[in-house]
């Protein structure tokens, strides 16, 4: 019933080389540590958003480089409907900093029903 998740979704594309595989050694969320499952070959990535903050900073490590992404967002606790669970709505997603080649915000709200992807990241 609750359509809100607690993570943003980013997809990766490699510019000029569609067959290249993206693999990070580790992904660190500042204030939390290393994210589980971070060594998989990545096409998409879930970005957990802490409720108590309004900014989440991620660092992506590879053998040769470091990428960073700082996301800002707003938090709205709400009772979606009387019979549903209470939920947190993350909205107004934006980036305050990133070191990727380019990044496009395609959905500024975390919402399962109509915003499957929030960021498209190009390397």
């Amino acid at each position, binding site marked *: 019933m609750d359509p809100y998740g607690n993570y943003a979704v980013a997809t990766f594309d490699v510019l000029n080389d569609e067959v290249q595989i993206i693999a990070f050694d580790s992904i660190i969320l500042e204030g939390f540590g290393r994210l*589980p499952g971070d060594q998989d070959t990545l096409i998409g990535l879930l970005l957990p958003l802490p409720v108590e903050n309004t900014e989440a900073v991620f660092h992506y490590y590879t053998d040769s480089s470091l990428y960073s992404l700082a996301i800002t967002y707003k938090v*709205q606790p709400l009772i979606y409907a009387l019979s549903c669970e209470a939920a947190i709505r993350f909205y107004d997603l934006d980036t305050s900093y990133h070191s990727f080649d380019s990044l496009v915000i395609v959905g500024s709200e975390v919402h399962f029903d109509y915003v499957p992807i929030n960021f498209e990241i190009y390397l």
Partner: protein
Amino acid sequence: MSLSILKSIYNILFLTLLPFIGMSQIADTVRIKPDWNPSRLHVGIEGSRLIGTAIKGYKRSLGGMVDLDFHRFLLAFEGGAEEINRLKTYEYTNQGTFFKWGLDYNLIPHNKYRNMVSLGLRYAKSRFSDQLTFAEENPWFGTQTLQFSNKDVSAHWTEILLRLNVHVWKNVLLGAVLRIELMKNVSAPDQFIPFDIPGWGRNWKSGTDDKTANMGFSYYLIYNFSFRKKEIPLKKIK
């Protein structure tokens, strides 16, 4: 010669205008001065809130009304307190007070039993605090207990009322009110958007859909304190 002609003209004019002069005299009415001095005070307790408190486990509320008559108008004041505790997979508590004041216009002032059907307008104001507590399961951060609260939130709105008062026994009346609540405005809450507003009802429809209009029905047990005799105005005969 000229005098007799003038007399004739005068007679013709008099006879011609006589029926109209007569008509204007018949149409004259005695204007009765409206009695603006108050004659009675109604004090009522809201039965719907008492019954709601008895049957709804999550809600306790109390409400009352007072009105004073001025000619065909009534100066009305309503007030109450509400406490809500919704306990589901979350816990939502809300407590506050509300006040409403405005005017009613009596549509049947000639009723010999002093029953009343009136149209009214109210300005309503509510002040409350609320709190939301729930557990959020998160694969990264584990299960977190989250708590959010708002202090001293205020809301105001306008109501249009259709009211019916019926004398049931001596000075006791039963009152029923159908109200349409409009133009709600809520002050910026501290941490989250309130789910309920005392005196208004649910603030949300569902999701993030704000409830911009509301409809309510309430009934009152009213006591009539009459402090002077007031004539029931006569009905106009057409």
